[in-house]
């Protein structure tokens, strides 16, 4: 019996395990996002490097994979072949993508995860995407709210601080913790304005930010980024008078100089897109998003950043690496 076990069962188990480790990535071409938490023993391979590892204890692993040069045609996934139009797969096939990942964990209390994706030129540039990313579904989830299916607006739960937006920098806006004592109406208005600032940031629309700041008679310090200055100012809105003043500043000029998100010429959410192998002349990458308040972590991962990202940080959300 013992001999049978060692001669038949163990080789079978070994074969199954080796198959698990040796098969290739079957989802080439798929945008993949994975957040995993393990308490105990983890014997697996690093999804990024395919190197086996052994972990024991508490481990949080985040994987974010954006493929390049891999496209599916028809029913099968192929690589490096021509499609019907004669286009050959290349790095320029990297999808236009904006995403946000939010992870909030409480020890023995479960994990809240929220992810948003806008994929493709049309989706990324749409005002719906701007609205969706301006609203903070993650926080709504964290506070047991729900996401409105119609426009991405939040029903229930308090909004996240305006600092948690796609493309925000690591510095904390001075109004990031100013949600307390602010009426719901002011917070909603602030969210809308923050969404417009996000669109400016992603579209590198500094001219409009300068115009708005000038219209509001807000001084820009030498060397300061006007968009970040505007983001700070919007984040510090606390009263209805402030809201009205900034709404007037954001309203389009009658001369038509200001951009409108709904117009075809809008620069809303114009994102850097891979257009070939990486070169020094690549378009600028928006600054990384870093967590704001609420013990949560938010990451925005435009496509030009990195095709594959993996983090193994206990208790932390996937972070962007360059």
């Amino acid at each position, binding site marked *: 019996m*013992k001999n049978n076990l060692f001669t038949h069962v163990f080789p079978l188990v070994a074969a199954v395990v080796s198959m698990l480790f040796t098969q290739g990535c*079957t989802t080439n071409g798929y*945008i993949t996002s994975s957040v*995993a938490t393990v308490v105990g023993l983890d014997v697996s391979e690093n999804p990024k490097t395919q190197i086996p590892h052994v972990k024991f204890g508490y481990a949080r692993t985040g994987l974010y994979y954006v493929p390049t040069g*891999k496209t599916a045609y028809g029913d099968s996934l192929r690589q490096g072949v021509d499609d019907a139009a004669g286009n050959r797969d290349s790095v320029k096939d990297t999808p236009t993508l904006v995403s946000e990942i939010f992870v909030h964990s409480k020890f023995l209390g479960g994990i809240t995860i929220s992810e948003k994706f806008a994929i*493709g030129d049309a989706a990324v540039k749409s005002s719906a995407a701007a609205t*969706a990313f301006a609203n903070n*579904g993650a926080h709504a989830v964290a506070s047991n709210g729900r996401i409105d299916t119609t426009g*991405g607006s939040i029903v229930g739960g308090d909004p996240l601080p305006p600092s948690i937006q796609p493309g925000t920098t690591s510095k904390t806006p001075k109004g990031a913790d100013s949600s307390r004592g602010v009426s719901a109406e002011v917070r909603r208005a602030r969210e809308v304005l923050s969404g417009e600032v996000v669109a400016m940031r992603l579209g590198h629309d500094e001219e409009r930010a300068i115009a708005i700041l000038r219209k509001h008679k807000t001084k820009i310090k030498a060397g300061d980024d006007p968009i970040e200055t505007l983001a700070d100012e919007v984040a510090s809105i606390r009263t209805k008078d402030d809201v009205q003043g900034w709404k007037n500043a954001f309203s389009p000029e009658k001369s038509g100089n200001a951009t409108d998100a709904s117009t075809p010429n809008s620069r809303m959410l114009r994102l850097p897109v891979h257009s070939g192998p990486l070169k020094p002349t690549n378009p600028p990458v928006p600054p990384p998003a870093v967590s704001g308040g609420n013990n949560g972590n938010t990451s925005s991962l435009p496509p030009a950043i990195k095709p594959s990202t993996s983090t193994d940080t206990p208790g932390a959300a996937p972070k962007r690496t360059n």
Partner: protein
Amino acid sequence: MNAASQISLLPILLLAFAVASCSWTGKDGTRHSLVIGIGVLSTKEQMQGAALITKTSLLGVALQGNPAMRGLIVGYSERLLAQIPPRWEGQLSLASSPRKPLTVQASACNSGGRH
């Protein structure tokens, strides 16, 4: 009881645990499967080119063959995996919170190329 006898009990115990499993479909259409012991869960995409969102909670010993995590886990594991196929364009939102159903919202712009 000698060592050989103890080893021979192992397959019997595993078989006993393997018989207990059940599946049910939630109000939101999500298929849930509970497997105690040895189990194989297979999911088929509902349509060609559809995004696949998988939430997994495991307690015990698990051998996983998922591309995002291949290997052996002993203990507790929780995973949320989103796979978006090539050439899919649109917006996708998903939210997972404790004791709440997995929420997925998708609106496709078109099914054309991603070039």
